[in-house]
């Protein structure tokens, strides 16, 4: 029963979602939107479970360090504490001052969370540089093709390149629009097929890795 019920639910919900795709009957759309809402609701509860586990492990390491302060071992306790404070702060601010424009909640988002997020994003510029230095060596024929193609497009896409020559930019677009596009299409077709067979196995209950783990 512990396996059969989930399998049946999986099949039912999968089959319903599959069939509704081909219908434009209002009922089909209603079912689709309903299931999406349910999905969203269950996701939110799962999020609470995930966050609860996060808090639990955080509290454990914070209290552990208090209990044994003299061991001298480096602990994560202060950092976990920072995370937990940050985690608690946002809901408290939201409760106290709302989430509208000008609220403390948004102030913290704008001045703390958002700048950090965009800074992490901008680390990419540095990592693109270090990867470029290391990853484009012309060791083999495919690697050489990779190198030439990258150099060509990079040159053609220097923001000011087309003030000097238009033919380079044109060649760059040709590479992107034809040979590169061809390979991309083949990759996408393959992914479409792989996704389809995987999803089908899931619905039919052949794929059930997620259901085991039974002791």
């Amino acid at each position: 029963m512990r396996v059969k019920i989930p399998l049946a639910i999986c099949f039912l919900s999968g089959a319903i979602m599959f069939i509704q795709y081909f219908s434009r009957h209002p009922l089909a759309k209603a079912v689709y939107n309903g299931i999406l809402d349910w999905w969203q609701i269950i996701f939110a509860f799962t999020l609470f479970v995930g966050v609860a586990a996060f808090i639990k492990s955080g509290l454990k390491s914070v209290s552990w360090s208090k209990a044994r302060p003299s061991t001298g071992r480096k602990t994560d306790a202060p950092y976990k504490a920072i995370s937990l404070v940050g985690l608690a702060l946002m809901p408290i601010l939201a409760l106290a001052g709302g989430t509208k424009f000008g609220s403390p909640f948004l102030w913290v988002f704008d001045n703390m969370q958002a700048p950090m997020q965009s800074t992490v994003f901008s680390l990419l510029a540095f990592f693109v540089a270090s990867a470029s230095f290391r990853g484009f060596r012309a060791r083999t024929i495919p690697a050489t093709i990779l190198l030439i193609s990258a150099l060509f497009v990079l040159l053609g896409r220097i923001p000011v390149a087309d003030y000097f020559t238009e033919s380079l930019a044109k060649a760059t677009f040709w590479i992107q629009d034809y040979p590169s596009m061809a390979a991309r299409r083949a990759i996408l077709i393959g992914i479409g097929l792989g996704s389809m067979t995987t999803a089908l196995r899931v619905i039919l209950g052949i794929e059930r890795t997620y259901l085991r783990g039974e002791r």
Partner: protein
Amino acid sequence: MAIFDPTTLPTLVISLISIAVVLYAVISIKRGKEFTIREIPGLKAIDDAVGRATEMGTPVLFTPGWGGDIQRPTTIASMNILSSVAEKTAEYDCRLIYPTHDPVIMAVAQEVVKEGCLKAGYPDRYRADDIFYITSSQFGYAAAVDGIISRTKPASIFLLGTFEAESLIMAETGNAVGAIQIAGTDSTIQLAFFIVACDYTLIGEELFAASGYLSKNKSILSSVKAQDILKLLIALFITTALIWATIDPKSSWWKY
């Protein structure tokens, strides 16, 4: 209001053909028909990667990326590989760290790893705390994984799933600590970054085939076979349509 939406007819036809081909492949393999999968570079490396981490006494890190959710079949394919990796880490008694941005993926991954440990014969080596949710924020997740990589210095890192801009942030940090990195994704843009930064990269569909190759699971093998049959049909379709289009440029029966 019509029940059937005629604009979806081509999709319905290709869906039904695909389902038929998959069922055919499943049945023929059940009847004992044998077939092999070509070698996929990078898969052999998985075994070595776990072995390497064990020897060096460091953990193995596995990330499904920030871009996916459980709805995405790529995530399921990634779970299949996770299952093989979990079995090996349990066998070698090597720690497996799995940080994720999605609580549902966390829950499913816990089941998968638990099963892997069980299969290996060491159910007690399953550590739920190591398969954990961090944050749903894309760059919060990237920052956290970067931190984990720099602190635990895993000898082997698996980046398998759906990635977005965080791909290279994690892969370059992994490279800086000297980890062997095996990547695979269905995000075409990120593939380019993985190819440049990682030791092995499973390209698109290879990720799906890889799970069959590793597990030798007959049902996965049969769907790989089905994918191949469909690819042949597609190639045939394109060639025919192309010749047709060249002879009769006004025709458009292949346009959907």
